[in-house]
């Protein structure tokens, strides 16, 4: 078993890493906030959230605020556990 095994491929992208970081410390975040914080385009962000949703690392809730559709995301317990493992692996690889 090498250290690399704990590096999670699902988080191996700047945007996905960013989405998880934000959702680790916030109960939820909506699409607009994620977009602003990550500086991503709509399509780009949508494809990455879809990938994380497929792994069941994040949960997606669609609702209406007034007449405007609003999509908000939160991290699942599985996603949080996996992300913690991923961070630990990163720290070990940096070798401190």
């Amino acid at each position, binding site marked *: 078993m090498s250290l690399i095994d704990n590096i999670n491929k699902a988080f191996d992208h*700047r945007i996905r*890493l*960013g989405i998880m*970081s*934000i959702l*680790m*410390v*916030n109960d939820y*975040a909506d699409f607009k*906030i994620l977009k602003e*914080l*990550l500086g991503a385009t709509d399509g780009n962000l949508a494809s990455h959230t879809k990938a994380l949703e497929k792994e069941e690392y994040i949960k997606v809730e669609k609702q209406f605020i007034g007449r405007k559709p609003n999509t908000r995301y939160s991290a699942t317990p599985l996603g949080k556990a996996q992300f913690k493992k991923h*961070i630990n692996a*990163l*720290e070990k*690889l*940096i*070798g401190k």
Partner: protein
Amino acid sequence: METNKYLNDITEIKNLMNRSSRFISLSGLSGVLAGIYALIGAGFAYVKLKETSAANYENFSGRSSSLWGSDTVSDLTFIAIAVLVAAVITGFIMTLKKSKKSGEKIWDSTSKRLVFNFAIPLVVGGLFCLVLMQQGIAGLVAPATLIFYGLACVNASKYTMGDVRYMGLAFIGIGLVSTQFIGYGLYFWALGFGVCHILYGALMYYKYDRN
């Protein structure tokens, strides 16, 4: 080269966690100015009280509250409100400036959360102080303001720079000590809102704002 990428990842994670959950544009310098206003206010209050009861001015904020003319009370209230308004306006302007410089929005989800969580203990404390006055326990007003302000800072520290937590704890400590020295409320006020604000404001300024 791989290590470098992982290092970048970690930095990015930390950065996003902070930026998405904490409002970090609070200006340290505004803390220093708030402290200076408080000291000036305390100076005015001291002079006012000395005028009112020249003989035993040291009893002012406690047992001898019945000796106060209502003039003194309204003067002191005016001073307190003037200090508060000046401090809040200065803080707002300087924070606005700093957030513009760093390109952060001043009214986003992080600052809303900060204000809301700061306000809960503060509003409760304010109401509680009004009750103390109503019941004629004016001597505990100064300690109560210090303690509740400290609790507000501790509560708000999760949503801004973590150092605010230590300032909050200092206020709580000063507040608790001052409960044992009723009648010296003004001195403890000056120590807390004046000296503490200046010290922590300067500390934050050197830590975060200087560049």
